[in-house]
């Protein structure tokens, strides 16, 4: 699956889609594929402060737990409640299934994140053994 060019990516396999001061955050197709069938998503709460590089929740497949790391610092403005009952939406379309929306504290932080092309190379290296 193609990685949207307008998103930015973390080395922990989250994506962030920025529009102005707010942004949506999810996990990458590579991440959902490595995890397998996702059965549980632990969401943050609206109003929570999240910090770049810090854990804001988790996703669990049948066989594993994976922490979610925020790609940016900010305040949670919305969470995708649908994932509580239908976590498999992440497997179906990881780049559409946003997990939280945040108001960014410092949009300049995003410069250090990976581009789609860089992330794709990074993800391939990780599986290329």
């Amino acid at each position: 699956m193609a990685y949207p060019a307008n998103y930015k990516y973390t080395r922990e396999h989250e994506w962030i889609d920025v529009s102005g001061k707010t942004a949506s955050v999810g996990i990458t197709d590579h991440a959902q594929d490595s995890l397998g069938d996702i059965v549980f998503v632990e969401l943050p709460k609206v109003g929570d402060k999240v910090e770049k590089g810090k854990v804001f929740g988790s996703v669990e497949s049948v066989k594993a737990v994976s922490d979610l790391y925020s790609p940016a610092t900010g305040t949670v403005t919305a969470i995708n409640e649908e994932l509580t009952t239908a976590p498999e939406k992440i497997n179906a379309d990881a780049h559409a299934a946003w997990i939280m929306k945040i108001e960014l504290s410092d949009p300049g932080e995003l410069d250090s994140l990976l581009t789609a092309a860089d992330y794709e190379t990074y993800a391939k290296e990780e599986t290329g053994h």
Partner: protein
Amino acid sequence: MTATAALRKTPLNGLHRRLGAKMVDFGGWDMPVEYSGLIAEHMAVRTGVGIFDVSHMGDIQLRGPGSLGAVQHISMNDAARLQVGQAQYSAMLYPEGTFVDDIIVHKFSENDYLFVINAGTREKDYEWIRTQARGFDCHVSDYSDYYTQLAIQGPKAQETLQKLTNVDLGKVKFYWFTWGTVCGLANTLIARTGYTGEDGFEIYVPSDVATSERVWDEVIATGAEFGILPCGLGARNTLRLEAALSLYGHEISESINVWEAGLDRFCKLEKGPFAGSEALKKVQAAGGPEKKLVGLEVVERGIARDGYRVMDLSGKEIGYVTSGSPAPFLKKNIALAYVPRSLAEVGTEVAVEIRNNQVKAKVVPLPFYKKPKKT
């Protein structure tokens, strides 16, 4: 990664990779964890049929006039009760009454027995068996690499395999075995055994790559009408967990004894002394084990995982989870755990510490899943 080079491979390794399986290091073996997806594979076995490559399992044969004596000394179940063509679940114990490994004992003839043993403990088990068999007039041989072992499991396993063999599989009862022609291979061992809590068979075919792949492909083609899926170790684990079957290194280990693990019904003290029996008698005489393996169902939202702590409702640590997972067929979050005997009663409420939260769970009867009776 360089580590991959050191991993052992079954004859079907190339096929798994061609099928796009996700591979993992399982006890030093490069094994498929899933192909199409763990849940689909799990459901195929519960509702139709699945095939697993379990060639990493070991096969140790004991032959000679003293073989029954050796088996009786090494294995806790009573092999004297076996008829030719019958198998039994058992375990090999240390003198402390704790586990070397769990095994399936097959009686080939009066002087010929086969132990099927776990992959991760193969070398240790073989050495143990050889050492313990000394003094018995019996020869111990490791045939592990001679066989590709395929598990064909599920309510449609019999119909699938029946199309590939001349043996009347309806006459092979659960935990019995026979030999017959399978996919044109004469004298193939066909056992009605498995590790899924479902009906099914395990077949042992020659371990060359061409034969192994041919048999696999024929089973897949034949099972297509029942929706057969290749199944990985991920589904194997969730299937065995729903059926509450022990996994070495989790529910049973060198520090867990038979009474704690609740495997009493496979341990026959009345047959006479065997390795581990004295220690087990002492535990019994002292009033029984202090901890017991129980089944937990997580009542609140959360998934218990291997190693998580179990607490009482006041927050005091009382035990630990040995295996925990979402149960794909039961659609519940289940776990096996060790708790003090006083808290092992069905219905007891406990908590599992899941990522710093105390999540409520209750003790439930085992097994979590029991296959429906045939009508």
